[in-house]
């Protein structure tokens, strides 16, 4: 079984934000919720780099570990998903997440921050695959349709790679050898430090 991962090649990302827009549109993500975002380091200075970041679907995910109600689960593809039926909107997963991935519809905790929302790797949720219930709660389930996440599929510079971790790591390494430089797979040492065999 494939172990799904994201890899953003920061030497290619041009901060066009198409991945962000594609994600919002594909899943009808509500206003104020950002499943994916582009962060620019050293903005406007030499060494500027942009990285498209979302949930990295960590191995031994911190969000799942700290959740008081145990609403997270990992699919056979290594995708970290959660149940909005169980989520109580406490906000703990955001405190634990290294990447700022969990998002909430409300800004205060008073009466709850609403059900947490985050990147699903276009894999839907715990509801039955490709149903309206699943779509309304979690967005489309492209993985069940045999497709990969839309953000990466439509990246114009192919900076954002999504898919089997071994394959995308191989593609990235080949690139680096050919062009002679590369600043690494952002966040991999944090997200996947436990399966470093790659």
């Amino acid at each position, binding site marked *: 079984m494939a172990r799904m991962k994201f890899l953003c090649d920061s030497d290619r990302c041009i901060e066009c*934000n198409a991945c962000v827009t594609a994600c919002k549109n594909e899943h009808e993500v509500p206003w*104020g919720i*950002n499943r994916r*975002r582009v*962060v*620019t*380091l*050293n*903005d406007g200075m*030499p*060494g500027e780099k942009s*990285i498209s970041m979302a949930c990295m679907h960590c191995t031994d995910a*911190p969000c799942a*570990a*700290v*959740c*008081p*109600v*145990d*609403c997270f689960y990992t699919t056979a593809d290594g995708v970290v998903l959660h149940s909005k039926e*169980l*989520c*109580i909107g*406490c*906000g*703990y997963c*955001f*405190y*634990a*997440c*290294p*990447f*700022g991935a969990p998002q909430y519809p409300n*800004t205060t*905790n*008073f*009466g*709850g921050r609403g059900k947490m929302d985050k990147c699903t790797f276009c894999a839907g949720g715990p509801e039955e695959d490709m149903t309206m219930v699943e779509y309304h709660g979690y967005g489309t389930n492209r993985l069940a349709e045999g497709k990969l996440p839309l953000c990466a599929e439509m990246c114009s510079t192919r900076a954002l790679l999504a898919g089997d971790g071994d394959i995308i*790591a*191989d593609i*990235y*390494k*080949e690139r*680096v*050898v050919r*062009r*002679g*430089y*590369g*600043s*690494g*797979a*952002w*966040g*991999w*040492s*944090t997200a*996947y*430090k436990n399966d*470093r065999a790659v």
Partner: protein
Amino acid sequence: MTSFLGKLFPAILMAVFLLTTAPAAYAQLDQRVSPASPSTKEEVELYEQLQGKLSGYVSIPDGKLATLVQPEGREWRDFRNYYGRIISAVMMLGMLALLGVFYLFRGKIRIAAGRAGRTVTRFMPIDRFAHWLTATSFMILALTGLVLSFGRPLLIPVIGHEAFTALSTYGKYSHNFLSFPFVLGVLLMLVLWIKDNIPEKADITWIKQGGGFLNNGSHPEAGRFNAGQKMIFWTIILGGLAMAVSGYMLMFPFYLTGVGGMQISHIVHLLGTAVMVSVIFGHIYIGTVGMEGAFDAMGNGEVDLNWAREHHAGWLKTQGISTDTRDGPSKVPTGGGPVPGLGQHAGAD
């Protein structure tokens, strides 16, 4: 001619500057083939070692998301899942065990001279209102809070995920709303009792004698509140304030701090719970099973005369009442009208 040279000179300077500095700037981009460049796939460093927090710029209106990687989450996770649970469980269960052992050895602390049958008013209705307002909201706050801390390992295996989510959702509503009566109660107690809780010399004697807990008969004299009660008072006031500050930070996340501040608020909130709950265990013990006659003070506000004589002689003196337990109730100066603070004990034996 001179003017031509005058124009050329700055241009040459500029060219020299660009030629010498450009490679340095170019190198900073590290987008260049250099002798260190990987020549095989095996040499490509995939897991780059990030040092500390990485923040940049985002175009969306949520400043928090400008942080690319925050490694502190890992330490907070260890606290939330491991250290926090161990520390608070050891403190709370340890206190219960201590109290159990204490009860086995010391038993219920009796009124040595027996009940006098007459009572003194110790707490006015407003005092008792403040106490029970704080106490009831505290107990529900502690229970609903601890459901979040320990429910996953202890309750989910028993009642299942759906029921636990329902429980913690309603628990959270109660926790949020009861924070207001709790804070009100703490502030009321602060205003009502602070004047009797200022530390004084007699407190040192009280502490040196162990509050008379260990040996029967010796009762270090105390004012309205003894050193032990003062410690409980200040734990509740200062602890309650710390709980309120950290709790409202959790309730209104990111209004005042970033992720780091939220993690610290949570840590303060859980450790504060551990301290307060343990202290309150001791308080409840001594106010109920641990000491004869103590509950009445907060029950109906009237304490038995001999109880007051044995535990709060200093306070009785200020009320102008005899502190000698050999004096019968009749020796209590009654004078003409009703004595302030003196009444008939309803349930006297």
